[in-house]
């Protein structure tokens, strides 16, 4: 394990420490949603006609859809007309270096403990910081450009590479895919765009820190990553949000496209505001993430550490279309207090010899409810498809819950599918054993939980793994008396 106890100890403050608001003047759309708002968003962003049309199609589809109710979560009804669908910092000029970034925003990053500059220098990470829906800082762009790599905000991609965006947007998650994806397609604000050209291995981790700011502004990011033939990329998405009393809707869409022999690794650490210990406030996180292994021997890996949000509804999935393609899903989901998570994955095997691996670790504490929902589908032409699934649940205390819903649909008899599941409780004896060696109780719990999550953490890039472990510590504070 990479984190030391001291690091975890440092985080021993009980309040959600990322709860602060940055005071930057905002350009906010009036509350409510109608075709005019969709047009406003599109024109604010100076989008081409085809994109406006696409948004409108999505909006009209959304109007006819119903909010899904099958998830194992409960939350107060969302007032879609009481939400504002666009916010942008007023100053939007392009920046060449971090020094040009608004000091307020820089201060926010400092509070988050994300020294961008240091990260650039020390860890070779290019950071495309998305601040409240609009990118304010993009780094390492030129270095990446030399290799033909495009890493920019979604809006910029629409301006500078419209043909790529038009080709791929909605190709993995159609605008009619589900209620929240349709909503996102209609009103998406910004997000990231990555294109790795043929044969290029991206030399550094691409990283974006999203941040929900402005009160009452739903956040609708849209991310599109395309790895062309033989290309590879590792992308990190990390999130923190300021403290809010009202629930905030977050409905992102992420699409990944891996062509022949391409590899995409997508890692997320999500710690949006989870609500307080009475269950008030917190983010509604309704995300659609899906990747397609389009070409033969392509590979997509989703790794996620979900510690935040009051309600999470998220199933990063892989469509394994190319022969010999590989899909992987590694997940840690933590629910404490009144948090609810319904998360998992779908592995859809279409090509021959396709393989998928699912490792899900659910941790419930307090009154947290944690549901794993996974589907493995083997199509009729998917000869010799393989799936291995492992779902482990860890309970801390006796008022929380863990639920597992694995779905299987096999249309080819050559398929081999394995499923393992376990539920365990953090034992008093494990904690006592640590204590009897001089390790304090909170540290003991962190250690046991981190051990439980090890198979997932080791899939994360190093500095992310450290961050993830810290977040686990914070999320579980006070969970054992």
């Amino acid at each position, binding site marked *: *394990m990479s984190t*030391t*106890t*001291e690091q975890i100890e440092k985080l021993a403050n009980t309040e959600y420490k990322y709860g602060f608001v940055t005071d930057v003047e905002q350009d906010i759309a009036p509350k409510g949603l109608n075709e005019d708002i969709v047009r406003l968003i599109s024109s604010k962003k100076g989008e081409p006609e085809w994109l406006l049309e696409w948004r409108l199609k999505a909006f009209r589809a959304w109007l006819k859809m119903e909010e899904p109710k099958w998830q194992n979560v409960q939350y107060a009804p969302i007032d879609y007309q009481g939400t504002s669908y666009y916010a942008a910092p007023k100053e939007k000029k392009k920046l060449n270096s971090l020094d040009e970034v608004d000091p307020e925003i820089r201060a926010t990053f400092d509070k988050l403990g994300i020294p961008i500059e240091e990260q650039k220098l020390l860890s070779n990470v290019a950071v495309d910081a998305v601040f409240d829906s609009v990118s304010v800082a993009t780094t390492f762009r030129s270095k990446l450009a030399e290799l033909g790599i495009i890493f920019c905000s979604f809006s910029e991609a629409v301006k500078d590479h419209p043909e790529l965006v038009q080709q791929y947007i909605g190709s993995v998650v159609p605008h009619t895919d589900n209620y929240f994806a349709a909503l996102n397609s209609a009103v998406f604000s910004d997000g990231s765009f990555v294109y790795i050209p043929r044969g290029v291995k991206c030399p550094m981790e691409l990283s974006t820190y999203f941040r929900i700011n402005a009160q009452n502004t739903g956040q609708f990011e849209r991310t599109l990553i395309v790895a062309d033939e033989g290309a590879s990329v590792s992308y990190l998405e990390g999130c923190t949000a300021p403290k809010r009393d009202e629930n905030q809707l977050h409905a992102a869409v992420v699409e990944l496209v891996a062509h022949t022999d391409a590899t995409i690794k997508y890692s997320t650490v999500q710690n949006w505001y989870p609500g307080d210990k009475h269950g008030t406030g917190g983010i509604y996180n309704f995300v659609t993430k899906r990747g397609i292994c389009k070409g033969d021997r392509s590979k997509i890996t989703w790794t996620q550490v979900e510690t935040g949000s009051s309600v999470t509804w998220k199933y990063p999935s892989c469509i394994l279309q190319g022969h010999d393609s590989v899909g992987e899903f590694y997940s840690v989901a933590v629910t404490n207090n009144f948090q609810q998570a319904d998360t998992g994955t779908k592995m859809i095997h279409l090509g021959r010899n396709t393989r998928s691996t699912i490792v899900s670790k659910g941790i419930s504490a307090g009154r947290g409810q944690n549901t794993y929902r996974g589907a493995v589908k083997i199509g009729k032409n998917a000869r010799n498809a393989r799936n291995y699934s492992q779902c482990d649940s860890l309970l801390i205390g006796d008022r929380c819950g863990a639920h597992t819903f694995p779905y299987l649909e096999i249309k080819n008899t050559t398929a081999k599918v394995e499923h393992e599941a376990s539920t365990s409780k953090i*034992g*008093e*004896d*494990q904690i*006592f*054993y*640590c*204590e*009897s*060696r*001089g*390790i*304090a*109780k909170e*540290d*003991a719990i962190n*250690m*046991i939980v*981190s*051990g*439980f*999550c*090890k*198979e997932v953490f080791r899939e994360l890039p190093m500095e992310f793994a450290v961050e993830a472990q810290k977040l686990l510590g914070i999320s579980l504070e006070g969970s054992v008396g």
Partner: protein
Amino acid sequence: MLLEVKNLKVRVADKEILKGINLTVQPGEVHAIMGPNGSGKSTFARALSGHPGYEITEGEVRYNGKDLLDMDPDERARDGVFMAFQYPVEIPGVNNAYFLKAALNAKRKQQGLDELDAIDFMKVVKEKLEVLHIDDSMLQRSVNEGFSGGEKKRNEIFHMAVLEPALALLDETDSGLDIDALRVVSEGVNAMRSPERSFVVVTHYQRLLNYIVPDYVHVLSEGRIVRSGGKALALELEEKGYAGQAAVGARR
């Protein structure tokens, strides 16, 4: 005086198990606590190390002049109390070396010493591994996970060697060890004997005491110490068994 236990009564799951234990341990002494299964030996060791399931209903325990019962288990450990478990617990996914480094540094921090970095820690560890004839690979495995019974016991003694306690409580450390392993473990313990370190060795069999020679032997029966004596008492018990010991104690 390192440890002074006075009239200790302990309740587990609503049943009184220890019914008034008295024991005094001076620095450097080795005390053996013997007794049949179920007599309360493990209960005594666990109560001293602060297991939350063991309720102290009466009595007093002074450790280095402090009220031991007032301290949390992790505080006791950092203050030099160590227990080698009869049944060591597995902690999946937690690297043994990482675990031990966290434990050692927690203790050093309390003592106002600098925390050891990975390199210095490994130096400490390598020495101890050699003395105990333990293979390096044990460091990289998860704490006790998939260890054989003997490996678990050795790992306990290894933890003790690294943490260098002032008071070591060894609970049935001999059980599950073959004769060679028993010899190695005992040598490890003997190497740690010093005028500053005391041991309370809990055992069912006298065999361990051939290797770790105690200064005192106490016989525990039904929650009471019914006899105390020198090392010869262990041999006598070996010959005559535990039967009758309670009666002997009761007569006194």
